[in-house]
């Protein structure tokens, strides 16, 4: 089942770090990783990325792999460069106080599919 990003924001008790970007976005699935190469190798487009990393490479990775949004776990806040690139590339950033397991569990329970499979779609 697809999920609106606004619903993901509310389930993750998240704070939107890019208020200038539209969050009425349709998300097809979820993927979590702290290893950017894993994200590039094992993800499918149009998903949300859950990660504990906050450097600008995370946004670049998300952009290359066609992610639609990024949620930073455990209340992490990225540096300014990360936010700037995200705004420029139109990838909304959210900071959630939850841990990776809790957050993935909530989204999965609410019907969001895993997009971690190695689909070439």
């Amino acid at each position, binding site marked *: 089942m697809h999920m609106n990003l606004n619903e993901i924001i509310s389930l993750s008790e998240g704070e939107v770090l890019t208020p200038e970007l539209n969050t009425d976005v349709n998300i097809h699935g979820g993927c979590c990783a702290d290893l950017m190469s894993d994200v590039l*190798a094992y993800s499918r*487009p149009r998903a949300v990325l859950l990660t504990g990393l906050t450097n600008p*490479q995370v946004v670049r990775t998300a952009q290359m792999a066609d992610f639609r949004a990024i949620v930073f776990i455990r209340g992490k806040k990225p540096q300014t460069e990360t936010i700037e690139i995200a705004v420029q590339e139109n990838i909304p950033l959210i900071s959630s106080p939850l841990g990776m397991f809790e957050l993935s569990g909530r989204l999965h329970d609410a019907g969001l599919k895993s997009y971690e499979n190695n689909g070439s779609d």
Partner: protein
Amino acid sequence: MDPTRPPTEQEKFGRHRPLTDRDAHEINRVEELSYDLKVREVMAANVITASPDMPMSGVLELLRTNRISGAPVVDGETLVGIISLEDIVRALQKNELSEPVHKYMSTQLVTAHCTDSVVESIKTFTEKGLGRLPVVDEDNKLKGIITKGDITRGILLAVQHDYKEEEVRRYRVSHLFEDIISDRTTLVLRYNIKAGDFTHGGNASSHIKRALLRLGADQKLARRCGIAAYEAEMNLIIHTSKGGILKLEVEPHKITLSTTDDGPGIANIEQVLQPGYSTATDKVREMGFGAGMGLVNIQKCVDKMELDSAPGKGTKLVMRIIVPPETLNSQKG
């Protein structure tokens, strides 16, 4: 028939050919649209309504003159009920056509919200077996009415719109390659990548991906090239002594990405192609790279990868991607 000719899809599979990537893409797009399109974008906004105090005979007249089978009942702008032909029949049986609408209207309302995705309404239609839904805003004010037909029409219009945009985009692209006549036209984009410049890591790949999309590559092709370029760009940043050059060459039927650097070079090429083999520092690993998957990822994304290196001299990585016939401008010009 030429016996050496391979059978066509139709000959091989009859009428029911398997789904191709392109079909899957189209289906995906319609599904996507059902989430992207909002009820307010497809609903009919001009609705014929009844008021709670009008007599049932008035409703009968209203339905007859407009040739409809039911109407929402609004008090001011607020939706309070629905009245249908069935309710009129009930009133007729009791000879109560002069009674007010609110006595016979149905107040158990199933509605759609104007900000809902169209897919929500599709679910409601399926679950409740209804033919039309009144559309309200957050204050329960009536904004319109939606039928299954409205949804189909809305999605078809959106698909048509997409298609037109795609056509315009392709036209623009085909211009670039078709207006310039040569025996072999190649567009070359070159990027200088600095060693250790993590902050800008990915900028060049980002430009490459955008350029390909602008040239008419579909999302899938742009994603493959983007990922390969990005891994290669990060390799230059992480592993070279003085940086290197990332190059994109676009031709009508193929895309070539390559990186060149002048050191330090790779001693054992077989080793670096092993998944998980890494010489990256902790700093690099903290950034989510250096897991020894870069070249493996690149191999997955491209059709052909060649790695050539000598210690002390440098490394050249060439990645070739064949452009599927219907993307870029390689279709008949």
